[in-house]
């Protein structure tokens, strides 16, 4: 089998390769390796970034080399400014055809998932969403492991397609890349340019506004999240959780039952259909632990539970538990923290 060209859509975050794209690159890298027995060799892995050269930091090329890419392809076209999902998909599709790519990979972000789905629709090919691992089998198919139920279940699957289209779950474990690209340390990948041929219809959906929401901590990136569920009992019960979150430099997150009761706004919801969090501490109060909720907090470093029910499902997913009424435990904890801070 000849070496396999693989494309990976890369998104940037403050001029650096976004964390989700780093994981996508790791999976894309494993697809670029030829599995032929006796002659394993690494094929080309092209990182695809939409934008023009002048707007990119030079460090991006070095960053990409570190994450296993062998080339950076900058895609731009007249009229293509900002995010336009069909135009991006058209660009990837045409680049994949030009390179006879074996696979096109993207992070399973809102942009990555959407663009790859458009690629699938444009080409008629299947798309495997939320993969955590992928490998070429050597007979033209791919063996995949992908998430279902936002990661509460894993599916082993076989993908059969002339070009594999897949997205990589944001919480997939990043592979060890040190063995793959040892010689490239400190050097940037070469940069090439590509101009897709776009039609008017490819540009009819484009992001027209993008405003940062005002200040404060975000649930997705907070270091401490104080979670409240059905056990909080009503909207007024969240004052104590807010106070505790304030003392620990964190924010309040809630379960789905809390938002569907209208106790708190949906933007505070942690879970499969809310926000995925990855704090140092998730202190889950009065939350039973439905899998849809746990899918949103499984990346927390520590989970501590306050719950009256010692048999709640969340007990089997947490590090520590206090068995008791949160309306008693949380005010006592707040008092203890205030006392400690006062002494400090």
């Amino acid at each position, binding site marked *: 089998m000849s070496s396999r060209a693989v494309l990976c859509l890369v998104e940037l975050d403050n001029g650096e390769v976004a964390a989700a794209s780093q994981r996508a690159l790791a999976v894309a890298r494993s697809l670029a390796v030829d599995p032929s027995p006796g002659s394993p060799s690494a094929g080309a892995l092209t990182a695809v970034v939409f934008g023009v050269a002048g707007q990119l930091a030079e460090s991006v090329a070095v960053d990409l080399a570190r994450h296993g890419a062998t080339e950076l392809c900058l895609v731009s076209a007249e009229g293509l400014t900002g*995010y336009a999902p069909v135009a991006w998909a058209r660009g990837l599709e045409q680049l994949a055809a030009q390179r006879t790519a074996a696979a096109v990979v993207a992070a*399973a972000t809102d942009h990555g*998932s*959407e663009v790859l*789905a*458009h690629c*699938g*629709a444009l080409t008629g*090919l*299947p*798309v*495997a*969403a939320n993969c955590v691992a992928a490998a070429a089998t050597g007979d033209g198919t791919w063996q995949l492991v992908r*998430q*279902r*139920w936002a990661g*509460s*279940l*894993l*599916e*082993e*699957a076989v*993908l*059969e397609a002339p070009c594999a289209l897949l997205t990589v779950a944001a919480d997939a474990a990043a592979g060890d890349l040190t063995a793959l690209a040892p010689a490239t340390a400190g050097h940037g990948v070469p940069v090439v340019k590509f101009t897709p041929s776009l039609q008017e219809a490819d540009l*009819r*959906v484009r*992001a*027209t506004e*993008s405003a*940062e*929401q005002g200040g404060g901590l975000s649930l997705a990136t907070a270091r401490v999240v104080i979670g409240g569920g059905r056990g909080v009992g009503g909207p007024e019960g969240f004052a104590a959780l807010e106070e505790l979150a*304030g*003392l620990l*430099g964190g924010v309040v997150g809630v379960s789905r039952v809390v938002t*569907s009761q209208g106790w708190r706004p*949906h933007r505070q919801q942690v879970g499969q*259909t*809310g926000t995925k969090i990855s704090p*140092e501490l998730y202190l889950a109060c009065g939350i039973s*632990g439905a*899998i849809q909720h746990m899918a949103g907090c499984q990346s927390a470093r520590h989970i*501590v*539970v306050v719950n009256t029910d010692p048999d709640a*499902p*969340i*007990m*089997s*997913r*947490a*590090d*520590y*538990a*206090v*068995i008791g009424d949160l309306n008693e*435990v949380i005010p*006592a904890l707040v008092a*203890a*923290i205030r006392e400690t*801070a006062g002494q*400090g």
Partner: protein
Amino acid sequence: MDVLVCVKRVPMVGGKVVLTADGQEVDTRMSGFTVSPHEECAVEEAVQITERSGGTVTVLTLGPPEAAEQLRDMLALGAHRGILLETDGREWGPVATAAAIAAAVGELGPGAFPLIMAGNEAADTGGYQVGIRVAHALGRPCVTGIKRLEVAGDVLRAWREYGGGQEGFEVALPAVVGVKEGINLPRYPSLPGRLRAKRAEITVLRPAWQADGLRKVALRVPAGSAQRARVLGHGAEAVPELMRVLGEMGLLAPVGVTGRDGVVA
């Protein structure tokens, strides 16, 4: 305006996923079924649009005969008509599902359903693509991840959250929209709604199953999800031990003294 909302029957899963002995399905003998949360919000949004400006809401699902239950649940929320693309119970991939939906819509003529809505992704398979594939098959623009929607004449404005900010889109109808939970708070079904849903006629079509290039081999529950929490104590008496644990995690440095970045006290 006539709105079509595509929904999916999925297992109602709670604290634990149990698989069938052959590892092919979620065991639903003790749990039952529901509609994916994003899609319930899509139905609510469609009902609100027709309450404001007239028209009808049609809910469509592809699934086994029992999926008519989920259509009736949505009819009870205020949808007017149901279409069941009936299957023999096999799992359909996104390519075949989208082709069947597009064919059913296409048969009703190009002017049918200026607005087609779907959930952003199904709760179980999470494929993120059926709505987009339907849009391409019908030659319509598609926006996804939508948490706010306005329809004014032939123009649809939609917004979604992205990277701490918002992305806005403006497209001409007819269009396809993928909706996310949080766009609204779905109502509870009323008693008259339930009675109407019970009597409502559901159109049944039977598309032919097609293989997808992505084939499921087996499902499994991820390893390492069966630890047991260490109990620190009971009630307020556990607070000293809880303080010790939080201290070990390095979380009890007094706020404002250490000046950690981004901390809002």
